[in-house]
């Protein structure tokens, strides 16, 4: 593996330099489809959505959500009880799937607790905990219940700090919060951190849980659909909000070279256009995808499947289609998997990168769920039915408010 690593070349013009790929030596995800990889894979193969009519708390919105079952009964471990909140329950439940804990313990033994870093992305962290506390304000003086444990539950580094303490690590820690691109960007920061030499393994992750802020906030923007979301459909009516957590272990070299998967490229950009509406021609999106291809040293035709950001909002899907079409024409199959999981916001980046890895492992291209008729204005190759065929490399898009874009390329490592 080390022999095949590409040299880091200085940037020429705006072209991103080719990068050495990283091994993604272990990964796991949990979302409305269930806990662990097998649950998501089975739902993708069976074309079974996790979206249900909104039954979260007392929220009376006419919409569908992707809720993770049973978090109410899964408190965090006693020694970390100040961290207990929906967001960290989801974090802990996800960490406990697919042997991920054992993989982290092995990395810790291999490299040392100070050589394993944690970088996690989120948009709203555990804001639900604070939202609910505001319902319990003292009627006399307006005070919140005390102790609130704001730092442990709601501050943006709540989840990565929970992960760090869960595994008793002392390496670098960071929270990235760039709205819906957050947990795609963790892969870029993870690559750089390993490249810098300051650590030997990085747990990258993303977690976002249901809360009133995003449900009512996206409703205020009239971006929420009243049916399960229909990405790229002529009659798409907006997003379905979901919750999810996903984690991956990045290392310089694979532990199991014969089946090695890795991060081949990443591209980051901003639109510099509008706070909550993407650039109509998808200029920033195109830049992110192009930078990812450049870093991976790949051409458009080397990509076997594109997992779209595909939120099913009118503007996102249209802008993304234009950007994808300019770079990939009609040749590369594309779909959104948000019809299965909902839009998991700050967890979408890693959720969909891991779905890309599952597609590679199992030779699957998932057709866009709930999409009945592709928007006739679209020119990219939107796939509606599942296809079974070899998949070596997947590009995954994540775009967020503030015009913040990230594209990842995951694939088989040449060993």
């Amino acid at each position, binding site marked *: 593996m080390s022999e095949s690593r590409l040299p880091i070349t200085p940037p020429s013009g705006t072209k991103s330099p080719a990068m050495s790929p990283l091994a993604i030596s272990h990964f796991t995800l949990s979302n409305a489809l269930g806990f662990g990889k097998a649950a998501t894979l089975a739902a993708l193969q069976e074309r079974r959505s996790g979206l249900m009519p909104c039954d979260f708390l007392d929220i009376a919105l006419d919409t569908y959500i992707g809720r993770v079952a049973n978090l109410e009964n899964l408190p965090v471990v006693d020694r970390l009880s100040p961290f207990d909140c929906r967001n960290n329950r989801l974090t802990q439940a996800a960490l406990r799937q697919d042997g991920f804990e054992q993989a982290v313990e092995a990395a810790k033994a291999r490299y040392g607790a100070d050589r394993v870093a944690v970088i996690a992305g989120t948009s709203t962290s555990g804001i639900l905990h604070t939202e609910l506390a505001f319902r319990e304000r003292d009627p006399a003086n307006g005070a*919140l219940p005390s102790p609130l444990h704001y730092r442990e539950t709601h*501050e943006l580094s709540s989840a990565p700090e929970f992960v760090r303490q869960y595994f008793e690590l002392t390496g670098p820690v960071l929270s990235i919060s760039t709205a819906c691109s957050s947990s795609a960007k963790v892969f870029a920061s993870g690559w750089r951190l390993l490249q810098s030499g300051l650590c030997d393994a990085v747990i990258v992750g993303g977690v976002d849980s249901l809360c009133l802020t995003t449900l009512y906030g996206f409703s205020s923007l009239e971006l929420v659909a009243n049916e399960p979301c229909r990405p790229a459909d002529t009659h798409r009516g907006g997003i379905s909000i979901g919750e999810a957590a996903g984690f991956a272990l990045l290392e310089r070299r694979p532990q199991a070279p014969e089946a090695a998967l890795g991060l081949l490229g990443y591209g980051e950009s901003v639109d510099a256009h509008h706070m909550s509406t993407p650039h109509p021609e998808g200029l920033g999106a195109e830049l992110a995808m192009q930078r990812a291809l450049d870093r991976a040293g790949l051409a458009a035709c080397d990509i076997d499947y594109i997992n779209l950001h595909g939120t099913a909002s009118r503007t996102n899907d249209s802008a993304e289609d234009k950007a994808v079409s300019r770079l990939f024409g009609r040749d590369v199959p594309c779909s959104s998997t948000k019809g299965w999981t909902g839009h998991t916001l700050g967890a979408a980046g890693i959720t969909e990168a891991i779905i890309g890895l599952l597609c590679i492992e199992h030779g699957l291209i998932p057709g866009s769920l709930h999409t009945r008729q592709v928007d006739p204005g679209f020119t990219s190759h939107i796939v509606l039915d599942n296809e079974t065929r070899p998949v070596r490399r997947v590009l995954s898009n994540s775009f967020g408010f503030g015009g913040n874009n990230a594209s990842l390329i995951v694939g088989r490592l040449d060993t």
Partner: protein
Amino acid sequence: MNHSTDAMTSLKPVYLDGIGVFGPGIADWSQARAVLNGSAAFDLDADLPPFNVADLPGTERRRAGKSVKLAVDLAAQAVHAARIDPTQPAAVFASTSGDTNVLTDICAALATDDRLISPMRFHNSVHNAASGYWTIAQSNRQPTTAVALHNLTASAGLLEAAIQVVTEQMPVLLVIYDIPFPPPLDAAEPIATVFGLSFLLRPERTEHSVAQLALSLTAASASPVDTLPDPALEALRTGVAAARALPLLAALAIERNGAMDATHTVTLDYVAPRVLTLDVTALTDAVDSMRNAS
């Protein structure tokens, strides 16, 4: 097993080309320098200067909240001081809780019967709001991130920015900023005042470089975290996450008046049991030495 004795814990040095500071009675780096080298007094309760948001277009200026105005003021200071084309640098925006006013307003509104929140308030609530407004104002499409690490946010921002400079070989704007929570969240999460700083960092020395910074992660037992002798400045350092970088600003302030090319080591807090150390080498005669070298 001997895993980490020979592992790398230091980054290649980066160059500091522009500095911005904002806080009580402090509108820019020259005013901060006067306070930090003792030639002016610091008062934690002094009035805040008006935000300079000349770089924001009118529409964005009307939409921006307080933390965005603070971050944009700081970003502009560093970029203008470094005399760099503002479309060029990538950016790292670091803040523990971002726009604390917007977060409080939203949580309060969601506890009412109608639960109505304004669309603008919602999009202003994202942690990358400041980076969004800044990049729109500058037509900058470079990679931009927004990060947090509670009381260690300043060190985490410095590390992320320096790593980007070293590994991507491109200029990076770093803005570290915090504003206090209003009631009732101020009791749960006290932030003493409005404070922020900004750096324009580069991979190579330029004629505008004022210092070289070499970052390392070091055992806390070997290197205690720097404090500030002035009680008011020390209250600022411990009272605002962004101000945990004050010892670095203090070193830069003193070096500028003192010996040339002397290296001073600054220690900031980081994830226990380690600290972040920065070897700061002043490049005070930047223009002259460049001239002599050529």
